[in-house]
């Protein structure tokens, strides 16, 4: 029997008012797979990740993580809407890094990284600090552990945000345009961290990005989103060398021209 995919979107639809943002979308992501999601502004990339992080509910369709439904639960053979306990259990499998970092400004880099492991996972302070120290080292910020977010550069803040998410030991990591708010010279340091993460850890990663170069060399597979549907998906090499869909070609041309 084939193993369940790590993540499965099954006919997922999301509306805002009458506006359909994600439109009957199907997507399977295998364990440890790295998927890049690209598409024009408003094509539904962020909406997709937010539903998987259980920040927004789906309007219809189902999402599964490791074969378990996120969008409903089964009790004695009955399908029920998910309760808070169910959502929190499923959320524990997923971590997310945001475009605007969203670090907690009243906590240091270390404080940001130990808060949830202590409160949610029940780690002791010492154990949480040990775990966070390791992760801050990995993102190259061990020496800045006592700095507050306001004392860090954008690139440093984003690396702390990555360490903070990893401290919860998620199985799936979501990255939503994590370099879009950064100065050009600090984009590289964040991408390097993400790359290393992919190489050195068993992690399923879904990366929304506008950096086509990064998508090409990092991702196993690229999905092009258009109006809430996956318009084309292919292994990264094929996708960029030989896009099949006219819309994909137009999008790639536009991105290349924009530099």
């Amino acid at each position, binding site marked *: 029997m084939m193993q369940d995919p790590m993540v499965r979107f099954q006919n997922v639809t999301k509306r805002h008012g009458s506006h359909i943002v994600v439109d009957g979308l199907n997507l399977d992501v295998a364990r440890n797979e790295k998927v890049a999601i690209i598409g024009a502004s408003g094509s539904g990339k962020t909406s997709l990740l937010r539903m998987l*992080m*259980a*920040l927004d509910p789906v309007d219809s369709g189902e999402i599964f993580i490791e074969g378990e439904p996120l969008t409903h639960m089964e009790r004695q053979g009955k399908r029920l809407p998910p309760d808070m306990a169910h959502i*929190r259990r499923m*959320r*524990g499998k*997923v*971590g*997310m890094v*945001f475009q*605007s970092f*969203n*670090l*907690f*400004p*009243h906590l*240091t880099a270390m404080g940001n990284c130990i*808060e*949830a492991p202590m*409160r*949610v996972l029940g780690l002791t302070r010492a154990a949480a600090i040990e775990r966070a120290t390791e992760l801050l080292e990995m993102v190259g910020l061990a020496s800045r552990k006592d*700095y*507050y*977010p*306001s*004392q860090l550069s954008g690139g440093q803040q984003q690396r702390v945000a990555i360490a*903070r*998410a990893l401290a*919860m030991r998620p199985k799936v990591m979501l990255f939503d345009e994590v370099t879009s708010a950064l100065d050009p010279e600090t984009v590289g340091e964040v991408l390097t961290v993400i790359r290393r993460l992919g190489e050195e850890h068993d992690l399923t990663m879904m990366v929304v990005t506008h950096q086509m170069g990064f998508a090409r060399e990092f991702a196993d597979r690229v999905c092009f989103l258009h109006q809430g549907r996956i318009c084309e998906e292919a292994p990264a090499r094929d996708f960029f060398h030989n896009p099949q869909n006219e819309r994909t070609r137009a999008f790639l041309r536009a991105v290349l021209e924009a530099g």
Partner: protein
Amino acid sequence: MGVTPLAIMLGLTAAALWWLAGHEDYRPFMPGLVEGAAVTMRITVAGAILAVAAALTAGLARLYAPAPLRWLAVTYVELFRGTSALVQLFWLFFVLPQFGVTIDAFTVAVLALGLNVGAYGAEVVRGAVLAVPLHQWEAGLALNLSRRQIVARIILPQAVVAMIPPWGNLFIELLKGTSLVSLITLADLTFRAQQMNQTTMQTGPIFTLVLLGYLFMSLTITIGMRLMERRAIRGLGRRA
């Protein structure tokens, strides 16, 4: 404004009080006024503690509690904001006993003034909490924190910084409001002054001392709140 000018003002006020207290026209009034000031301070401090507790409870209930509790919080805020502190004092002290509930004057003073200021404070709490960006909530959710943990550990600590200056105003309102308690038989600073004024007709010295006394207390509150604000801002890693 920094703390230094305020500290200088406080020092000058204290020096003026000290100097006048040595003056023979003023000296006789000092013991009575000091006793009155002690009552004023006790009501202010106890009222402030109650006000903060009531404001946090009602402010957070309005935002996060289920419907019945939310309505209760709204009712509390509107009831105490919409009627004057004087009426509340009278009602608790003179009307409530008619229903068989008698509360001593000091407790009535603390309850009425504390809950009155707490009603305004609830709106301060609510506003400061709402001013924390929504993405802080989402970052907390993405880390799988519970709603309660997000409010207590993420939202409130950030909101506190914005709450401190308006709370400074509220505490000073509370201090000034204590002058009403003379109407329910408590011998606060204002009551003592009026009493001595009636017997001695020495309005000038008495009310000069009272003025300086209130100024001294309100400057202490202002400086205390400024220092708290500074600390809170430092806690965000920013320079005060």
